[in-house]
């Protein structure tokens, strides 16, 4: 089998098209951008959230507010995988989330546990009107009843494989790999 081999499943052009489509879908689903805020989960979801905001700006002429969540302290597996502090900047939500339509943005949706942590953290900040989820890649293998509202690409994987998202702003290149 080729499980140890790296396979590229998205490149910069497919990532760009997927993000453009998600921006349109967010506007369509929410009938515009009233009360819509984008909140990215660090450390790549925040980059994608900013890109979606820029894209929405091109379409609507106005940018929705953008925030970033560091979910480290809300994870349920601190004891199992060790702590992972120091990687992230602190959570930054420059607006009140009460009554907002929050679109959570992450790079990869896998077990759903990061999303659970992000929702717990978000709810400690206030009471959003609703929470939607946008991801670049849905790789399956959910362990919680969570699904994405907006998906860039569904990629079937085995649980042992790793999905690696590389973004220009952070990694200096643009690609999605499976290995």
């Amino acid at each position: 089998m080729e499980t140890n081999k790296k396979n590229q499943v998205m490149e910069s052009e497919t990532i760009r098209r997927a993000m453009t489509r998600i921006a349109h879908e967010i506007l369509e689903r929410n009938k515009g951008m009233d009360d819509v805020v984008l909140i990215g989960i660090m450390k790549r979801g925040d980059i994608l959230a900013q890109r979606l905001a820029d894209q929405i700006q091109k379409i609507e002429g106005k940018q929705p507010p953008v925030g970033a969540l560091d979910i480290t302290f809300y994870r349920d597996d601190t004891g199992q995988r060790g702590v992972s502090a120091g990687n992230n900047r602190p959570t930054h939500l420059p607006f009140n989330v009460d009554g907002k339509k929050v679109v959570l943005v992450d790079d990869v949706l896998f077990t759903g546990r990061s999303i659970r942590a992000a929702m717990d953290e978000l709810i400690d900040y206030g009471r959003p009107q609703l929470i939607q989820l946008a991801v670049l890649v849905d790789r399956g293998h959910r362990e919680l009843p969570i699904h994405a509202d907006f998906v860039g690409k569904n990629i079937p994987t085995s649980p042992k494989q790793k999905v690696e998202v590389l973004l220009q702003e952070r990694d200096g290149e643009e690609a999605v790999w499976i290995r």
Partner: protein
Amino acid sequence: MGLQRKDLLSLEELTAEEMLLILDTAQSFKEVVQRPIKKVPALRGKTVVNLFFENSTRTRTSFELAAKRLSADVVNFTASTSSLAKGETLLDTVRNIEAMNVHTIIMRHAYSGSVRLVAQNIKASVVNAGDGTHEHPTQGLLDMFTIRECKGSLAGLTVTLVGDIIHSRVARSNIHGLIKLGAKVRIVGPATLVPRSFARLGVEVHTNLEEAIKDADVINILRIQLERQDGKFFPSSREYATMYGVNARRLKLAKPDVLIMHPGPMNRGIEISPRVADGPNSVILDQVTNGVAVRMAVLYLLSGGENADENVN
């Protein structure tokens, strides 16, 4: 990356990278304690024991708040009400506490080295909250955090520690930490309280306050610890204030944006004048605020298991 150690006993044994990890993590926790809900579930289900064999209000409260804001359960234990009063040994006392399945013991004791003795004999994590005249690592870390927050970095700064160096665990933790992160450290006070032998730790030893605070970026003023002094180290508090009290006139010798720090409790009018303590350069209360975030970082980082796998989605 977590901290690859069971205990935090001193800054002498930490690397610069470990200290920076704690300071960076504390930065995230500082944001947490400014939220409407100042609490995260990171240590849910863990138990932290505050084991203080010496009086303390500030440090114990700070650790207690830190643990509670991480959702840990906290038990406070004070020596005067303990079995030690009935003749139990220190190790028996802590082994009994450990047998109740606690995860972290925060310990303060009047004897230098006692915290390490306990750490070597139990499986729970131990955090040194001050052992005799040895070290007070979380105070050192919160001092460095406060300086870094105001100045951006510690490298190249001149930090002057004033006062009772020989009895000060805060001074020892500051010296080890600051030097590793690239600051220049001066110590100053009466020769009886500032031994020349400290020079081998890499600090400049002064006895003239005005020389020592000239062009300083930070002045950290230590408390005159009358309770730890078993003899006469200076003729009178009044003479000490005249020679080594930091006042507004002397402050002019330091850089205009000098930071004034004090680990508390202050003896106003002895080591620090009220005008300096309450003046625009003072960050004394910021130190207290930052103490909670730094202690959250320490408790959190010590609670982790193996190293983090970066690639979990």
